[in-house]
């Protein structure tokens, strides 16, 4: 077996990276990822500007949010990303069944994330927190709902990849679509770890 696809070999010999162009997955997915990261960046700039113009609201805002829900969802997102990495390692190691199982784990995380988010929004409503409460919650709802949609279609994308593994379209030698989905999912995770710190933690 080729050493470069063995999970037990030296880490530095391993990589998603296509050796000819040194890009993990396809170039197209990276245009999408950089566009999405820029979109989230614009939202973060809006957050920072709203914060400097409304310091009191942004000081009080995070204290009324459900930290437990935010933290749990962060743990879930990070774990889903971990599962996706393990799925990539498994397919490289020619273990498609194992790879699909890791991806089902990631899908389950995505679904649990969405359920917790729905409960969190209901909890907010019960506390009287809504988009029009003040600008902090306006930004919170705009950013988190946008992210919610990404987790939704990202989970659907993971299911599509599982289908392609199960129908032997992705193999140990050819699984660029899985890599594309993996790096896209990690982008969703990157956006969330930033949102968590900005909206739930810092004041």
């Amino acid at each position, binding site marked *: 077996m080729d050493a470069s696809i063995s*999970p*037990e*070999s*030296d*880490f*530095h010999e*391993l*990589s*998603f*990276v296509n050796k000819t*162009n*040194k*890009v*993990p997955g396809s170039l197209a997915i*990276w245009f999408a990822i*950089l566009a999405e*990261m820029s979109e989230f*960046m614009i939202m*973060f*700039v809006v957050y*920072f*500007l709203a*914060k*400097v*113009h409304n*310091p009191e609201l942004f*000081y009080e805002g*995070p204290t009324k949010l459900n*930290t437990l829900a*935010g*933290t749990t969802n*962060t*743990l879930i997102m*990070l*774990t889903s*990303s*971990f599962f*996706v*990495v*393990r799925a990539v*390692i498994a397919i490289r190691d020619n273990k498609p069944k194992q790879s699909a199982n890791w991806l089902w784990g990631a899908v389950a995380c995505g679904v649990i994330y969405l359920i917790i988010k729905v409960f969190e929004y209901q909890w907010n409503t019960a506390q009287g927190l809504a988009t029009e409460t003040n600008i902090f919650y306006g930004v919170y709802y705009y950013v988190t709902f946008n992210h919610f949609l990404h987790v939704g279609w990202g989970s659907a994308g993971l299911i599509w990849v599982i289908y392609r593994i199960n129908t032997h379209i992705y193999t140990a030698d050819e699984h660029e679509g899985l890599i594309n989905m*993996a*790096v896209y999912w*990690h*982008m969703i*995770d*990157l956006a969330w*770890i*930033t949102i*968590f*710190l*900005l909206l*739930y*933690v*810092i*004041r």
Partner: protein
Amino acid sequence: MKVMTHTKIIDYLWLILITLTLFSAYMAERAEPGFVSIAIMAAVLAIKGRIIVDHFMELKDAHPLLRTLMRTYFYVIPAMMILVYLFPEQIAKWTAL
């Protein structure tokens, strides 16, 4: 020296990410807001972002432009967290319509 396997490294990195998240939750609930806590949280974000970009996305050994672009987000956002904490009035003045 024994080289750690890829899966082992990924397992440890996941544990580090989880620990940093629990630490952030503790800071959200307990820590007094102030420069030190903002600086620590900025560092936490920089570390978490870098782990995911370098090791989960595997950009560590990828094309330098792609690697730099993705890493830059996790220099810029933590820097913005600190600047907005230190100079809120100045930034508000510059961005007033």
